[in-house]
């Protein structure tokens, strides 16, 4: 470790030198802008996870005294370390947002140790007080709240009572979305089922299309998904004439007829807040989380196929979530194998750590986690 630190300092000096040279060559700027680096794991225009971040980055670009630099399709390897370092050394970035989950450990932590004066904020829930340095942090949204509302709309709209969920991997974050969506649907139609299909990875367009088609063949008439880019799922469903609920960002454009609503990120809220803090000379929060109430997530505007009754039910649940009178995860709750996962009388708020380790599918979901 000691060895690594000396190298770090040397590289830092080199970086500082090149940054200075760069500053000189760029001429005398009136005021040094705040340089913010964004790193995306996929393309910026993927109608999904990365686009949600890029849209918020575009908002930052319009702020005065802010310069945004972006890199897309950076894999979760040493490449992202080098991208961060390059942004710091060559562009003078002082705030870096590596947005993909796998960037955190070890890549972002390694860079944070090497560049203690740069602020790193990671999208996800991994930052732990006392364990991770103070120039790092994480921010995330409880998007399952929006999924629950999507589920209500889906359950109210479906004629067959069969819903479909194309998912990447059976990890807690994804399971939480599937469960919230299914519970939302079953709150309005207790007989509704949700077929979950795991494709195995975040971006497998062919498998996503196959999964969607096979669910359509089984009579599923509303699909949603949790993959990096919902584009393929939404378009496939629209072509087959069934309904869709979006994810990550608004996909209404891809499915003008069948798009019901969707669970969207609203990163702009967090980013603008962070940047304002930085401009005042402060450091952004280390552990920032919120859901519908904080405005970190939102639902897409209702599509033309959503009935007034469905809207009313979803809006009622939404106001319950907003005023804190309604909890999604409360007992008695059974998984789809019949085991009780939340005992009667127990009710979890969204911040509950137990929910972070979710490893089951609730009753009504057809599918298995392994």
């Amino acid at each position, binding site marked *: *470790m000691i*060895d*690594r630190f000396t*190298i770090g300092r*040397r*590289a830092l000096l*080199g*970086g500082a030198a*090149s940054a200075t040279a760069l500053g000189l060559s760029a001429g005398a700027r009136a005021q040094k802008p705040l340089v913010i680096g964004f790193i995306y794991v996929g*393309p910026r225009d993927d109608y999904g996870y990365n686009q949600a971040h890029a849209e918020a980055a575009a908002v930052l670009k319009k702020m005065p005294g802010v310069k945004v*630099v*972006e*890199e*897309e*399709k*950076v*894999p*979760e*390897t*040493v*490449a992202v370390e*080098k*991208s961060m*370092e*390059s*942004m710091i*050394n*060559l*562009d003078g970035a002082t705030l870096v947002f590596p947005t993909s*989950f*796998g960037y955190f450990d*070890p890549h972002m932590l390694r860079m944070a140790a090497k560049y203690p004066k740069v602020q790193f904020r990671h999208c*996800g829930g991994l930052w732990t007080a006392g364990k991770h340095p103070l120039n790092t942090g994480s921010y995330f949204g409880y998007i399952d709240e929006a999924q629950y509302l999507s589920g209500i709309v889906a359950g109210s709209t479906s004629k067959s009572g069969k819903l479909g969920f194309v998912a990447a*991997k*059976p*990890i*807690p*974050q994804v399971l939480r979305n599937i469960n919230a969506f299914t519970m939302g649907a079953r709150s309005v139609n207790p007989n509704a089922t949700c077929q979950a299909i795991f494709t*195995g*990875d975040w971006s497998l367009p062919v498998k996503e299309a196959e999964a969607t088609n096979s669910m359509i063949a089984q009579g599923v008439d509303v699909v949603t998904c949790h993959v990096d880019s919902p584009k393929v799922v939404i378009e496939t469903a629209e072509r087959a004439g069934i309904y869709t609920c979006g994810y990550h960002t608004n996909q209404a454009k891809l499915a003008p007829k069948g798009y019901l609503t969707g669970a969207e990120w609203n990163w702009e809220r967090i980013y603008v807040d962070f940047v304002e803090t930085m401009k005042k000379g402060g450091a952004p929060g280390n552990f920032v989380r919120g859901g519908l109430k904080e405005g970190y997530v939102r639902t897409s505007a209702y599509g033309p196929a959503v009935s007034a009754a469905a809207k009313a039910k979803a809006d009622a649940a939404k106001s319950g979530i907003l005023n804190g009178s309604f909890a999604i995860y409360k007992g008695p709750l059974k998984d789809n194998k019949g085991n009780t996962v939340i005992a009667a009388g127990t009710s979890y708020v969204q911040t509950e750590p137990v929910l*972070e*380790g979710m490893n089951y599918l609730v009753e009504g979901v057809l599918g298995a986690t*392994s």
Partner: protein
Amino acid sequence: MNTAFERIAVSALALLASAVLFGLLLTFYAGVDPLEAYALMYQGAFGSWFSFQNTLTRAAPLILTALCTALPARLGLMIIGNEGALVAGGVAAAAAGVAVSGTTPLLAQLVMAAAAMAAGGAWIALAGGLRHYRGVNETISSLLLTYIAIALMNHFVEGPLRDPSSLNKPSTHPIGDANMIGAIGGTDVHWGLAFGIVACVLCYLVQRFTTFGFAMQVIGGNPKTARMMGLDVGRHVLVACGAGGAAAGLAGMVEVAAVHGKANASLAVGYGYAGILVSFLARHHPLAIIPVAILLGGIGASGGLLQRRLDLPDAAVVVLQGIIFVAILASETLYGRSWRWLWRIKAAEGR
């Protein structure tokens, strides 16, 4: 005629042609000043000590994975399962590393390297063996074996080898900070680069100065003749494929022991596929692999700067790599007649 000189001249010509072609694309399609783009690429890849280390770090895995194609190519076999061997090696290294993480770091590292090389070697030797003993096309089988390797990795990482605390990114248990192989003294570049260079030099020496290497060349020239001469073709195929796979497997071990500290889906990010490209660009010559890998590493390292400064998409550097690949393959037709061609071009330029 001096063939080494011819090789370098033809490759340089192909590179120049691709640079011009890419420049035209930049100018007319993307509306970017190509000179500015090339200046940025130079700055991002070689322009400073930081940039050069960035390039070398990216080149390191490519050198090792390229050998996986280059060695069997000497025997006339077209192996493209580099990614599979890397993944198999990475998972084996992590499993071994976790098993012996309590011992001394050196022992743990040796065990990890051995496990990775054995797994990667066996993976490609399987493709070679299928080719030699069962007549299965080695290109297809090695490619398909890659999918199997990635599926197996997902199975192990999400199942038997999973660290239960790796919730949203399934990974194996960490091998422990003490067992990491770290960076070459005074730099930021991990030891994988040194392993790669040593492996390339070793392969060159074996190919150039040993009877085994000569036998490989004979088999590559004509396997039937080689068999009639009494050479054990099967053994050579298995050894060459095994050694190539071992090199790619070692690249997987380096990813685990120098970068990630554990095995997870980040092993399969395309180093293996890029290695095929490197091997072809180097015309399967072990020593040429080193500069070619550094060139491609540099293109990768500068890609970020192109995105950030010129707002080019990530695809820009992929397009450049593609153009280089096609230009080098097309330039193969120049061999033997390159002098005539070169003279003609010179004459045309003189006009």
